[in-house]
């Protein structure tokens, strides 16, 4: 593989999502859709190149994590915007997805654009499940946060009464969709943690260990659980639900890309 392949892919994806976001802001939705699909296809190409050359799934490291997460996030965006409940929020979901993808790509701009070292344990199936499913769960949490924020920050109080009822109903539909995505995310995340526990047991003799990694992993689980166990005043507030529901996404981004 020529050395310029991965940087070329990275900057092409970056440009396409930047164009898509600008076009969405300018309300040129059909062209924005073309740019987003092209970006997703190229991110998919990056993942295919990884599997073909390294003979493994995307697991760890800045570049492969970014490409895999943004691929899953943009695929989820495509599925979500086709749902009947999301018709009124279509443009916003796409715009927020474009912004989220750009933020992740910008965070990685100064990091080496290469695949992670082929660590010898990557041949183990549980290691593969642990790292790969964690990235997939991250994509679900990010998409869940996008859905929540898409609906939460509309201002129904400034609308006529019948419009308010309509808006609240649509908002509830999107919130329910976000609930499904977050719950699916936690199922994937727990499957990743289960695999990780088995890996830990076979490698170190324990199903879990006191470590920085364990504390961070526990926080993700607890954050998702918190967003599903909100007491009355908080559970009635869409904005509070959106803020708390976005925490798993923000924390996992920090965990994977910064810390």
């Amino acid at each position: 593989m020529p050395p310029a392949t991965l940087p070329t892919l990275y900057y092409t994806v970056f440009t396409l999502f930047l164009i898509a976001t600008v076009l969405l802001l300018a309300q040129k939705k059909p062209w924005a859709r073309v740019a987003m699909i092209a970006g997703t296809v190229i991110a998919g190409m990056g993942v295919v190149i990884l599997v073909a050359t390294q003979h493994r799934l995307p697991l760890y490291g800045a570049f492969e994590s970014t490409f895999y997460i943004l691929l899953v996030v943009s695929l989820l965006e495509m599925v979500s915007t086709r749902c009947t409940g999301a018709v009124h929020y279509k443009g916003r979901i796409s715009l927020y997805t474009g912004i989220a993808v750009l933020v992740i790509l910008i965070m990685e701009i100064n990091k080496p654009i290469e695949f992670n070292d082929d660590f010898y344990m990557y041949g183990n199936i549980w290691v593969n499940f642990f790292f790969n499913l964690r990235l997939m769960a991250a994509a679900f949490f990010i998409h869940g946060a996008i859905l929540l924020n898409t609906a939460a920050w509309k201002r129904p109080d400034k609308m006529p009464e019948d419009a308010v009822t309509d808006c609240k109903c649509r908002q509830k539909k999107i919130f329910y969709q976000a609930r499904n995505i977050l719950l699916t995310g936690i199922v994937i995340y727990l499957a990743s943690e289960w695999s990780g526990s088995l890996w830990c047991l076979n490698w170190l003799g324990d199903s879990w260990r006191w470590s920085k990694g364990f504390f961070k992993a526990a926080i993700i689980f607890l954050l998702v659980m918190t967003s599903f166990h909100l007491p009355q005043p908080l559970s009635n507030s869409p904005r509070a639900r959106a803020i708390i529901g976005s925490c798993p996404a923000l924390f996992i981004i920090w965990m994977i890309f910064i810390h």
Partner: protein
Amino acid sequence: MIQKIGSIKLTFFSLVLLIVLMGMGIVLSLFPAYTDAIEKMNQTIVYQWIVNTWHEQPLLTTWVLLVTISSAVLFINTACCSMTIQLRTALKTVSVRRWSFFIIHFLFLMVLACHGITMVTGHKQDNIQLCPEDSHLFGDNYRIDVVNVTFSDDPKFLTMKRKKSRHLMTRKNIHPKLNYADIALFQNNRRLDSQRVFMLHPMRYKSIRITVTRFIAKHQNGQQIVGVNLSITRNIFTQFFFTVYALMIITLACFVAITWKPKTQEL
């Protein structure tokens, strides 16, 4: 009273408290002194660690106790909520939705209980460094003998610093199936079992697990000898933990599938 203990408010606050405590754990592990102390917690049963080190590490011990207490509060809260509200609702009308909701919480309780039990029971010894023909004694007159160690890859990887070696320890350079230790297990000098132990493939005898965590290089009489770093654990709940944990994930997945479409009153 039970309804108050099982309230969602208490769930919320105990979850938030646990998040804060885990966050404190991350901050503590940024300091080398605490990193080492936290690592030592993995070398023995946590209860023993608390008893032995509370006077040396008062802050860390307090933190561990707070984590344990908050988890216990969450456990009691979930148990009260499951047994009073969720079970009663499930029994009222036969509904897969309600039963799966109850079962998820019940299995979560089991997982949490397993975590708690492993903190006070079983046997755990980490960082046991043995070379060929070395022996090690542990609880109930058990003994392990390292009969032989075979390391077919370049031993230079064993003497490098961990950070440096990680980049080089690729699938091309390290072949886990070619590196192993032959280990024999005895009790009261009676041979119980002997197995070839590889990385990621521990020796198992009933609830005893002997794990090769890494290979090590030692110098003896001017010669480099390859040995193993072992971990010995004895936990009767391991299989139960993994089964219950897997069942919890499957039930949660089923619950998500069943409730994917909202009921009209939920919109």
